[in-house]
């Protein structure tokens, strides 16, 4: 389709309680830069049930407009309902580009919507810009498990769409709400939602592992040696108010649940501080955490590849290092 405007849209995914997922608000930061370069408005799209908190968050983080679709059928994410609503909005307003957070739901919705609109979708981007020559969005993303980066354009189709990794961009400073809020009445009938959620099974130890929203993560790998090896990792995390992460080797060994896994087949995270304990730094692990602001590695092998990405690397036994570090932190924090 043709773009009707030069506007840039950010899909702000909502949580079950109607608040915004962090990544949607983060994406308003590059969205502002790109909308300005494209010469259009920055528009946040909020779909859900009782979403005033998400609308407020988008308004106070730079959106010029917020388009809201509310209804009980959107309370729990479903591909069918969300794709119908989002496509209807795109067809009505005709934005030139759209950013979607690369969460599980974002990567479920993005391809469904872009395919329905017969346009291009660039997956899981880690850098965004406007191509000087053509004025198209230049989407940059890792492929081959993080071994290669590619910059991709979508020159002849609109909107140009990309999913973007959580944690890559930082939220901008909050300002007074200034966005114009537009409500669209779009409803989806029950028969058009072809999936049904039966139940949610939580992991046994689910203290709700919010890795994507965490400011500090302390992760353990095969080097912790067993389920009890996570004790010093948990103790440090507790002292720092951090979330516990893990490598796949630790998860596959059954020492901790998959909800804690960071990496290509786990969560992509972008905390202010990431502490990797007994993790070698395989490319599939780095794919999930190399966007962290500060990386600390504790590993007894001085040649472990994790040290290549670490800002601070301690060569040593984690069972000796972690308790002392935890104690120092507890002392400092009283």
């Amino acid at each position, binding site marked *: 389709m043709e773009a009707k405007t030069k506007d840039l849209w950010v899909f702000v995914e909502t949580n079950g309680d109607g608040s915004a997922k962090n990544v949607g608000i983060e994406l308003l930061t590059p969205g502002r830069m790109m909308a300005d370069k494209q010469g259009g408005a920055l528009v946040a799209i909020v779909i859900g049930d009782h979403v005033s908190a998400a609308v407020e968050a988008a308004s106070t983080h730079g959106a010029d407009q917020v388009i809201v679709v509310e209804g009980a059928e959107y309370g729990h994410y479903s591909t069918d309902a969300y794709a119908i609503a989002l496509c209807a909005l795109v067809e009505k307003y005709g934005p030139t580009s759209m950013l979607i957070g690369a969460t599980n739901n974002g990567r479920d919705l993005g391809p469904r919507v872009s395919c329905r609109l017969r346009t291009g979708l660039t997956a899981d981007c880690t850098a965004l810009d406007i191509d000087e020559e053509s004025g198209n969005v230049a989407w940059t993303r890792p*492929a081959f498990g993080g071994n290669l980066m590619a910059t991709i354009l979508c020159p002849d189709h609109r909107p140009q769409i990309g999913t973007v990794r959580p944690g890559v961009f930082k939220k901008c400073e909050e300002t007074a709400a200034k966005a114009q809020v537009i409500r669209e009445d779009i409803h989806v009938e029950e028969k058009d939602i072809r999936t*049904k959620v039966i139940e949610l*099974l939580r992991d046994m130890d689910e203290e709700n592992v919010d890795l994507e929203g965490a400011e500090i993560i302390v992760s353990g790998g095969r080097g912790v040696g067993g389920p009890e090896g996570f004790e010093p990792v948990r103790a440090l995390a507790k002292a720092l108010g951090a979330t516990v992460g893990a490598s796949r080797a630790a998860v596959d060994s059954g020492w901790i649940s998959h909800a804690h896994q960071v990496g290509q087949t786990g969560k992509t995270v972008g905390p202010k501080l990431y502490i990797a304990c007994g993790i070698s730094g395989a490319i599939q692990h780095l794919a999930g955490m190399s966007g962290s602001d*500060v990386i600390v590695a504790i590993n007894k092998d001085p040649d472990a590849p994790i040290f290549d990405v670490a800002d*601070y690397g301690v060569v040593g036994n984690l069972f000796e290092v972690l308790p002392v570090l935890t104690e120092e932190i507890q002392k400092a924090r009283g």
Partner: protein
Amino acid sequence: MNILVCIKQVPDTTEIKIDPVKNTLIREGVPSIVNPFDGYALEAAARIKDKDPNTRIVVLSMGPEQAKAALKECLAIAADKAYLVSDRAFGGSDTLATSYIISETIKKVEELEGKFDAIFCGKQAIDGDTAQVGPEIAEHLDYPQVTYGLEAAAGDGRIRVNKEVEEGVEVVEVQTPCVVTFTKPAWDPRYPTIKRKMAANRADIPTLTAADLPTIDLAHAGLKGSPTKVKKTFVPQKKTGGVKIKEETAADSAVKLFQLLSDASVI
């Protein structure tokens, strides 16, 4: 149950090295494997067949002739029949074009194999890494989709999928026909038996080309049918210049780390 599993042959990206001089990927000598996530999809289909032996599993790959090696591996593990779709006109397809070609091929294979109740895919291929082809096949066919599946059970015209979500595992029921994509479950997929391996080696794998797909519009296939264009590729820069800490004792190292982190206001 009639299940189609989509299989991509991929380079084993854990074996990829970087040419330090040219700063490019070295692809020579990297073994080709069945995309690991497609192995999980095949295992999910095989588990449905374990419960209901009337289940038939067909595998399909789009790619060059050599992708038949991947299809043979799937025949050896659990598949009953394999098809390759291959044509010069399909080269350079992005995910929209790839999923279009695969969905057109599915229509053709259904003429030969009967209608599929479910299309199983991997969550993503470990080379392109987009995780888009499965949902896009679903859209081309107007089927419902469930992504991030861990396991699946079939019955009563529905499939029940245990799906990985942020908060844990969600049990979702989906109407058939449908598309389900699979991520890594807690178990390892089964291995082929010698007997199946020998049979797979003798198996005839038909190759379909564009000419076999009566309804395909080649304007939507290949490089020119692809809305996304790769402008450039490069090897990511490694972050360097981190501080290495190795004091006399581990305790001293820990204290030093604490000081550095405090000084930098990180903690």
